[in-house]
């Protein structure tokens, strides 16, 4: 009898909170993220998007409630994350990917660099790449872990439109290959372009959860409607 492969999906937050000192960074979060199209975490700065990603990546433990990965209390190793400002190791672009791969496999390194369009820059020191190239290299490094879920924390926050387009194309391609994308952004345009469903957060709380089209066309909450209008949601 064949055993079903281990999966980290659905990713579930059960009344999960993170409190630091007397501040609730995230409070009483109940959320289930299934397999499928990209889930976009939307919300103003300080709404808890990055914290949610760190909890989901198991980098931080909740101070209350619990998180489960595929109904288990611990995730499998097939999670990967790209940070808003990824740290480039002091070595070449190819060596950065090889490091994440954890083994010598030049063919796989070349494949991954090809996938993010960085093969011509394989021998260049990673720290000398542009911001957009560094983000693409961070994506290659994350993909080296062969992730089932890829968490992205505002990966295009400081990029120009051309670099943003390049990163978004890779994300769409990765999502199409079956990797679950969970991405934080505060850019409405990007959310519209990439989202399958939207998780809207404000002040550390889940305000609204909906399929992307529904969220953008008929938001159910006043805060989401205000955010979509471009009002300041504080």
């Amino acid at each position, binding site marked *: 009898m064949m055993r079903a492969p281990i999966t980290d999906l659905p990713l579930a937050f059960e009344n999960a909170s993170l409190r630091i000192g007397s501040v609730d960074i995230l409070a009483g979060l109940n959320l289930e993220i299934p397999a499928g199209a990209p889930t976009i975490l939307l919300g103003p700065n300080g709404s808890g998007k990055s914290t949610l990603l760190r909890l989901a990546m198991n980098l931080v433990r909740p101070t209350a409630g619990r998180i489960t990965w595929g109904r288990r209390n611990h995730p499998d190793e097939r999670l990967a994350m790209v940070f808003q400002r990824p*740290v480039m190791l*002091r*070595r070449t672009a190819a060596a950065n990917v090889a490091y994440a791969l954890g083994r010598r496999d030049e063919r796989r390194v070349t494949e991954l660099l090809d996938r993010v369009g960085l093969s011509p820059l394989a021998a260049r020191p990673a720290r000398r790449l542009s911001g957009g190239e560094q983000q693409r290299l961070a994506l290659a490094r994350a993909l080296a*872990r062969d992730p089932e879920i890829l968490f992205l924390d505002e990966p295009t926050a400081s990029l120009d439109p051309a670099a943003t387009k390049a990163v978004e194309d890779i994300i769409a391609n990765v999502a199409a290959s079956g990797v679950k994308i969970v991405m934080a952004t505060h850019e409405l345009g990007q959310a519209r372009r990439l989202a399958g469903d939207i998780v809207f957060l404000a002040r550390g709380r889940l305000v609204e959860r909906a399929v992307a089209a529904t969220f953008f066309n008929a938001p159910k909450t006043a805060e989401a409607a205000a955010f979509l209008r471009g009002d300041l949601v504080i």
Partner: protein
Amino acid sequence: MPDGASALQLVFGGDPGLYRIVALSLYVSVAAVLLAALVALPFGAFLALVKFPGRTFVVVVINAFMGLPPVVVGLAVYLLLSRSGPLGFLGILFTPHAMIVAQALLVIPIIAALTRQTIEDLWTEYREELTALRVSPARRVGTLIWDARFSLVTTLLAGFGRAAAEVGTVMIVGGNIEGFTRTMTTAIALETSKGDLPLAMGLGLVLVTIVIGVNAIAWGARRVGELRAG
């Protein structure tokens, strides 16, 4: 300035005694720094990355030991290595090996303390990325030491500077024996006390030139490395 001219004549005149002293000094100092680095680099990285009860105390002690009086270290090593001491059976007192051990003990706190600080700062920057990549603790240490390599070169140079300038420790455990344990610093002290200022000045000139030369080579290597690795 006749003493200065005599000093230059000694340096460039091919005096074998002088070159023997220079060679021994370099051998002892470089060996001491390498020996110290073997212990202090991983220990400094360990202090930076591992939290344990009493860690703050250890960090404070290591930092304080950067200013350890050389004669105290010399005395301690002398007592350890003397015939009635616990390590007397090694029979290395008044040999270059004893000088290497003593200098290494002086240099270990410098390299360990500066390594700890460097690695701790880098860990602050790398923590999330390496944790997200699920890098094992042992691999983290290697990664951080490798990525901090250019800063750590400066740390090793600080250790070399301390070792090369050392007089009191090597005098006590080496004995300043001519042709065997006489280094540049101990020779300078001796020749000055004897009034042989040309030799003292010549040695001083060589010592300063070596220290500047080693630093220049290390700086050049660091620049080339940074250009290649980013």
